[in-house]
């Protein structure tokens, strides 16, 4: 971060990422500072992010005085997928660029359309302008496109490393082998985060290990989304669909083969301390294979550490998948980093020893009612309301530069502003986090609907 200013509250808060114990600032102390910082962001961004400008005008908000003022300025994740999908299908890069500009801090300049053949080309040209666009990797829905600055990419990884040390007590000392085992899309953010993890954790005398299957570029993910749209429209030809399904089957096979390669790498490095970044779904399969080959927790270092996230979509795992996977690699639960975060934000909330996710001081936690329109006030007068409150999670990540930091999530959380059982004083979130989409009933029947209800997905 080369743009830090000593007079900026944003910068003072964000700089706490390098402090010893950033997750201990009580709500009463952090709130006025966050309000001042959000206000500072608003003043600067209102003339830059067009969607924010519209929002502020519609809500009549020019100044942040209290938490409730932030609510009308929060973006839903759909703000980042509000471009017409037809533009992707028809490769209208100039229009996509104009759209991206309305949700970006820094101007998206016109590109040379004749040099753009694919979405990946477009993203590459944007990178040359300093726009690092990340896509959500949904394969059936529209891709969210989120602009990030180089500083955002750095911050996303850096907060992870710092929080890792805070949560596990294991600081990065380049004394272990780093294994990057998550089959994630090669978005700029994923690439940058993995690179940083390797730099900080991997020992100089050993090669890091990267997940071996075909890289999934944003373009290849989007191909699937585009094809689905064309199937719905009736413009896709059957041969094209068959060809695509074949490709998807190949990718599936490659992922199955990767299980063996990953198991080999883990077994081959079992004499060293390891840093493992992965997803539970695929890691469970690796654990099974490692055990089948006769290895178990006793064969791995007790000082292993890592970050293993969800990745359970479409996977059917036994109830004890966590314990099974962690035991296989001798990963003690307190050596494992747990974060609660989302692609739309730079910063994760970090799980403490009491099992709660703590907010960094540069991220404001806003608890809203289910509709997302009303703030559930954490404090009445000078006294924070006691106990836990349930509602929709929303955040303002002050570290975000490339786009607006205010976001409403789809998550149903329970939060408290009181000191946690772990002793840390920052606001914290209960570990049971649900998605509102999953809690809603699934039996809505109406005669009104679209062609989507008839479309069989691809692969």
């Amino acid at each position, binding site marked *: 971060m080369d743009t830090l200013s000593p007079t900026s509250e944003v910068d003072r808060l964000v700089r706490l990422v390098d402090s010893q114990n950033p997750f201990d600032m009580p709500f009463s102390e952090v709130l006025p500072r966050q309000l001042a910082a959000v206000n500072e962001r608003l003043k600067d961004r209102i003339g830059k992010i067009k969607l924010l400008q519209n929002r502020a005008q519609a809500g009549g908000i020019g100044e942040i005085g209290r938490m409730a003022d932030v609510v009308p300025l929060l973006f*839903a994740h759909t703000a980042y997928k509000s471009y017409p999908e037809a533009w992707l299908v028809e490769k209208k890069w100039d229009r996509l660029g104009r759209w991206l500009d309305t949700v970006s801090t820094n101007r998206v300049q016109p590109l040379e359309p004749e040099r753009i053949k694919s979405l990946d080309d477009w993203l590459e040209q944007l990178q040359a302008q300093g726009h690092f666009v990340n896509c959500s990797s949904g394969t059936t829905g529209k891709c969210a496109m989120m602009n990030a600055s180089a500083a955002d990419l750095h911050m996303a990884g850096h907060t992870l490393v710092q929080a890792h040390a805070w949560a596990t007590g294991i600081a990065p000392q380049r004394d272990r082998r780093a294994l990057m085992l998550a089959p994630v899309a090669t978005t700029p953010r994923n690439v940058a985060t993995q690179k940083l993890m390797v730099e900080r954790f991997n020992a100089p005398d050993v090669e890091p290990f990267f997940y071996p299957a075909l890289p999934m570029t944003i373009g290849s993910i989007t191909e699937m989304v585009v094809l689905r749209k064309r199937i719905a429209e009736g413009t896709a030809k059957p041969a094209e669909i068959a060809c695509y399904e074949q490709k998807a089957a190949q990718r599936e096979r490659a992922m199955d083969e990767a299980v063996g390669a990953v198991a080999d790498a883990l077994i081959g490095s079992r004499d060293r301390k390891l840093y493992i970044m992965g997803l539970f779904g695929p890691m469970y399969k690796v654990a099974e294979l490692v055990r089948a080959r006769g290895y178990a927790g006793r064969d791995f270092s007790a000082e292993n550490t890592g970050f293993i996230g969800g990745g359970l979509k479409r996977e059917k795992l036994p109830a004890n998948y966590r314990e099974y996977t962690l035991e296989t690699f001798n990963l003690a639960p307190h050596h494992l980093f747990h974060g609660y975060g989302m692609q739309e934000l730079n910063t994760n909330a970090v799980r403490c020893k009491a099992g709660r996710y703590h907010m960094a001081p540069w991220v404001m936690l806003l608890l809203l*009612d289910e509709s997302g329109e009303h703030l559930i006030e954490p404090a009445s007068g000078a006294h924070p309301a006691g106990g836990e409150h349930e509602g929709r999670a929303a955040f303002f990540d002050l570290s975000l530069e490339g786009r607006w930091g205010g976001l409403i999530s789809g998550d149903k959380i329970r939060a408290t502003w009181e000191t946690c059982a772990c002793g840390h004083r920052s606001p914290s979130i209960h570990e049971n986090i649900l998605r509102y989409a999953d809690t809603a009933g699934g039996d809505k029947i109406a005669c009104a609907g679209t062609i989507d209800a008839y479309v069989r997905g691809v692969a």
Partner: protein
Amino acid sequence: MNQAIQLKSAPDPAAHAPFFVRGALVEGHEVRHRSRDLGVDFTTPMIDLDAIITPRTEPGPLFEVELSEIVDFLVETGRRMTLERNAHLQACARRIAATNVLPRVVIEQNIRMAADYLKKERLMELVEQNFGNPKLLDEWIERVDSTGRRSFTRAFPPRLIHVLPGNSPVVSVQSIAMGAMVKAVNLFKMGSSDPFMAVAILRTMLDVDASHPVPRSMSAVYWRGGDQQVERAIYRPQYFDKIVAWGGGDAINNVIKYLGPGLQLVSFDPKTSISMIGVEAFASDESLGEVARAAAHDVGILNQEACVASRILFLEGDRTQVDRFCQRLQQELAALDATSGKAPPLPRDMTEEVESLRAMDEDFGVWGVGDGSGLVVRSDQPVDFHPINKTANVVPVKSLGDALKYINVATQTVGVYPPARQAELRNGLASGGAQRIVRLGDAGGTSVGAPHDAMYPMHRFVHWIVHEDGHVRG
């Protein structure tokens, strides 16, 4: 005081939704459910699975009842359905208002429409259009084919499960009437946003004659769609012939699992309706006003909850003309608030998309706000979201023929202006998959007995049985 809890307090006591099982009302509060749309609780009795099944060895109560007697009974039921004089329907309107997104005034209109549906001429016309010869329902009709073989055919009563939609109370009365006229054994699975209307109509039947075979042929219950405990047990050809289902996506996928030889699906698929407006609309300021009013009417049907409500309007004209139309359309949509109330505000996701489009003012135009009072979005191609809550998506085209590429099997009603151009478009529309062509402004009308979703529904409900009697001598 815990504000988190205060914000989301359900009305207490929760609305009660009794069941109706083979001619008898079943009260009980054993099970608590939550309505899909508004998250409001309601209570129902436990389902007695054995009671809602009529074994095949037992003929349905209506199998040998004459159509004319059934129609007379339905007509009498209709007479008793005057909202002001029917306590069941009054309670029903109150309860639906709590679980459904439709405003009370619209629900009451719907209930009045439901009573209107049960008129003798109308019901008979419906049967005639579906079967040609209504006697097919009562008798084995003789025919001798070209080779001299004799046969007798009857439209035999089926055993039906009706999976009712929750978005239009009037569908309950249609399903009950059609189910009665084909003399079926009927099980109605009600929707969570209206688990009341079917039972209210059936209770009215009990007031007419509690021992009549029509109510005895009917059961109406609620279970949560997809509840395997219920569906795995009863969705079987040993008990039912056909599942008549409204909806798509998950609602239909739940049902499809159980289909097979002997248990078929008659589906009323989810539909989108559209409008096609020719450049003739701009002939004068007066015509523009008329067209905008007609278009607004089609968009606003049941506050756009219905499948016949228009969502995308293809319009011939240059940018200035199109924008003039959009502005007028928004005004006309807002004017509807006076009679049918505001629609609910747009969901957050949709608001976000609309606001992003508003920010791109070169490529899009947005008139109005997303508070349910009427919103118009102009875009070069149909928008990615599904316009709801009185939202019209206006898409300019060079010629209405250019819009045909957007037609698909989910396109139901197409409102056309000027009416003279319907004939020019109808083959192309039908070929693309559309099922109903009307004059702009008339999407909510119905030609009695006309096909619905490209079929004659009652014709599909029955079991076409033949008794073949060999060659006729002489």
